[in-house]
């Protein structure tokens, strides 16, 4: 899958703008289509795909509609995900206190 927003050049641009360790374009099934930066994109895309499927169910529980974006901060890492209809943009960076700005920036970049 290639489109104007997620080609390799754009991956690098997003990486620079977000100041994260890595960015990847993942298929809905969790296959890493393209990536930039020094991180294990294949694993992260696969894990994200599994988690996203379960997190989407929460939208059903709450009648909240489609999951648009999400982020997870652990003790060491922060993961940012922007969902699209048939794919997602995934980024990984260091753990931060306020991940909101990066999450929004990634979401904008994915549009």
């Amino acid at each position, binding site marked *: 899958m290639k489109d104007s927003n997620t080609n390799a050049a754009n991956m690098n641009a997003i990486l620079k703008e977000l100041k994260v360790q890595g960015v990847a374009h993942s298929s809905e099934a969790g296959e890493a289509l393209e990536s930039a930066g020094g991180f294990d994109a294949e*694993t*992260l895309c696969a*894990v994200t795909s*599994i*988690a*996203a*499927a*379960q*997190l989407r*169910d*929460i*939208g059903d*529980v*709450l*009648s*909240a*509609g*489609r*999951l*648009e*974006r*999400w*982020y*997870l*901060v*652990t*003790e*060491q*890492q922060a*993961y940012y995900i922007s969902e699209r209809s048939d794919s997602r943009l995934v980024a990984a960076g260091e*753990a931060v*206190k*306020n*991940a*909101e*700005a990066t*999450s*929004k*920036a990634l979401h904008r970049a994915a549009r």
Partner: protein
Amino acid sequence: MPANSPSSDSLPSIFPGATISGRFRLERLLGRGSMGSVWLARHLTLDVDVAVKFIDAAFRDQKDHRGRFALEAQAAARINSPHVVNVLDFGAEASGRLYIAMEYLQGEDVGKLLERSGRLSPAITARIVSHACRGLGRAHALGIAHRDVKPENLFLVGATEDEGFVLKILDFGVAKSAQKAGSDFVGTVVGQLVGSPAYMSPEQAHGSLDVDYRSDLFSLAVVAYHCLTGVVPFGGDSLAELLIGIVSKEPVPATRLTPGLPRAVDDWFQRALDKNPARRFASAKDLAQAFHMAIGQHASSATDYSSSTPAVIARGAAQVRPLSGSDTVVHMSPAAGRAPSAHHADVSNHTPSAAVPLALAQVAEVANVLGIALVGPEDEPVAHHSLMGLPASTFSDVTRRVRESLDTFESLESTRSQALALYFEHATVLIRWVESHAVIVVGTEQVHPTVLSVSLNAAASKLQTLAKQAGSAAIAFRSTISSLPDNELTEVSGTALVVRPSANDPVSDVTLARLTQVFAKPLGAVGRLAIQQRLKGGKPTVQAYPDFVKRLAQLIEDATEREAFLVDALRLVQTEAAPPVPLAAKPTVLVAAPPPTQKLAPAVPALTPNPVAAIAPPAQRPGPAAPPRPRSATTDPVIPLPSAAAADPAGKTKKFVMYRGRKIEVDE
């Protein structure tokens, strides 16, 4: 020997008034078990009540029974869980008879409660299962299987009617330690039945030696079945018939015996009572979580088996409030109770019952927030508040789903999640983890993400502080927040989250928990018990606290340890006044909206705080109708400041909003 001493205890040393090992004076016989007797005794040094269990004279010289008795003491002492009875001492009295000294519990066991009540509510049953699983989980992690889980061995301390009890597991007398398996001592011999027949697992009924923790989980499921239905799942006119039933028959579905129970409960029993241990729940934690989910929102209602309100949030739901008789407000004066005194952070002496809801309230106050909850480690709701009447079980459900979905992430780097944000088309869900608890907030899609995030972080920090104040184990923190009723929002007072008690106020539970920890340093479990006993007469006031501490110190024999205790204990309560801090926020009105059972139209102004103090009640709480309250720009806690926009060196325009007197940068 007095005439009324028990005949079976024929050795002369066991009678009321007898002194055991120079440490305990026997008061009276409490009861008899299969292997011995249990006495109420007084700890002579600490002057507290304890329970002392003796092995009967008939078993005194039998190696296996002596070994089993010793194993019971060792097992219970190693487990060290708030849900397992606390062992204080183990030894032999003058005639050689073994004894175990334990904390003296007041309450009743589940067996007696069942005798009295017939069957129990889902809420009480869920609490029993949850607490028992915590105790068993700890034992299982140490390789110890109880092997006699039954109602009589599940003791409820505290009031059972209002679910305020704490369950403690008794009698590890037939416990089996995996570490002992290869040693000389084995708790049972092949073919010997160990345990109480009606609650036995199939493997126990077979007399197998291959009995592990999964047998305990089966037995606990039998107890749960008994609690919910009033009968045990396997019965019969004879022992043989009973055992055949356990190993070969399927129980009647619980929903058939107790109509109104969720169907998921039948599925849970099917798995928990599977004849094959490998197909049962993998752990006590899994069993408890699955039970909680199977029971669902029934767990939050002691009697209601049918009030199943689906959780629905619709776009704009928070903004629409029809003039309906069901729209309820509960007014609360800001001066209700003692007016808060605002001080800087000496939270060790705060009022804990207010601090947790205050921390939650701070988030609930953010515009477009629909509800917030504190959810426990087993996804059980601890405290929650929802303007929209979202039930506590919805928060639990969402938290559970999140936890399950993040398992793979956590395995990536073996660290725990700290924060999660989910942005849906029509809702925003934020979670912050604090210790083993999750703070979860649900808002509409219109909630300001940065403000909500900052507010949630602040609340989480406060909860974290409370947890730390309660000690590293945070047990007291958990017990404190567990005692909070749902929807308790006592006051909303801006940044003033700390209420310093006056001299005549009782010392807080958190402080007493810390004092207990300090006192346990020199005296161990006995020290904890001594404080518990003294608190039965009531908590000391701030003024009386120093005397309370000095009296405790007299129990410490070593002068150096006594001095160290006094210094640490007196430091816990500071009675001098701290400089006041003006309240940043006005009293707040939070007006309840009807339960969100239908899709509602979008784009109507949100409810926001207003100078009339009120709190949102649960949707089912009766009360007077309230008219809709339009948004008031002057009382909105989030005030955009157009003049606050500024250009940074990179040429980007920064924007700020003011929230609770703080300038918060936003990125759009």
